[in-house]
């Protein structure tokens, strides 16, 4: 266990995990707190998960070191889904 957790890649993964947990708790509290402008808070709530998806893809799935075509495809799909969801939300609410 000691060897694995002391590797540079494993330390980075643990830091990414801590960021993911913090981002989850933040978007969870933003989603519950209705004191904020609800349109703004919903856009934040929709953006944060895609930042988390980016972190999981680049670090946990090792796309950071992968061929640029695969990385580009993954990022394109995520950006399109995120952009379309936010656009639909803003035009219909």
């Amino acid at each position, binding site marked *: *266990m000691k060897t*694995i957790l002391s*590797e540079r890649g494993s330390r980075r993964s643990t830091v990414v995990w801590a960021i993911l947990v913090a981002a989850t*708790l933040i978007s969870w509290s933003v989603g519950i707190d209705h004191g904020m402008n609800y349109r703004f808070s919903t856009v934040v*709530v929709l953006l944060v*998960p895609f930042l988390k998806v980016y972190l999981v893809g680049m670090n946990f799935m090792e796309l950071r070191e992968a061929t640029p075509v695969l990385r580009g495809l993954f990022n394109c799909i995520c950006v399109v889904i995120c952009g379309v969801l936010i656009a639909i939300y803003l035009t219909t609410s």
Partner: protein
Amino acid sequence: MTTAQTEVPAAADARRGRVPGEPGVWIMILGDLIVFGVLFVLFMSQRGSDPDLFNRSQLTLHRAFGGVNTLLLVTSSLLVVLAVGAIRAGEKVARALLYWALACAGVFLVNKGIEWNALIVDGHGLSSNSYFTYFFVMTGLHAAHVIFGAALLIAMVVLSGKDRPSKPHIGLVESFGCYWHLIDILWLIIFPLLYLVH
């Protein structure tokens, strides 16, 4: 400098510019992402036609189920990353890490079952309204992915026994790991869509 410290940057350099795992798995991963993406867009469009119904229906959910399940899957993803690293290095700790990841998957499914049961007891079902149709379809499809992913984690446990894993062996392990991260990614989007967007 120890052997382990010198091997890590070299291993990272060797992985640069390649496809993690088997290329065929990436077709499945990106395809799944697109299919769920279409489902997410359909959900958001439907929500736009009756936001009040979607907001009212969402308030009947217990957000804690979704939030705790997010933390469980994110944690399981970290455990799988560490397990893949351990398998590459031929370390026995991989098996324990995978058992913990499987435990996270198990608790996720139990939580999901409790949540579904509570909703059904309260009179909500697949045909209650369009929000609950999407809720049960999305979470049901995702739960099916979790069950399939858990089976792949069990396969990883079996593959983790070797001291000197071969390249195809490592490719399989990486593929299964990437599939598990896809399950995490899908839930990272499903949670805010179903539980938080207001």
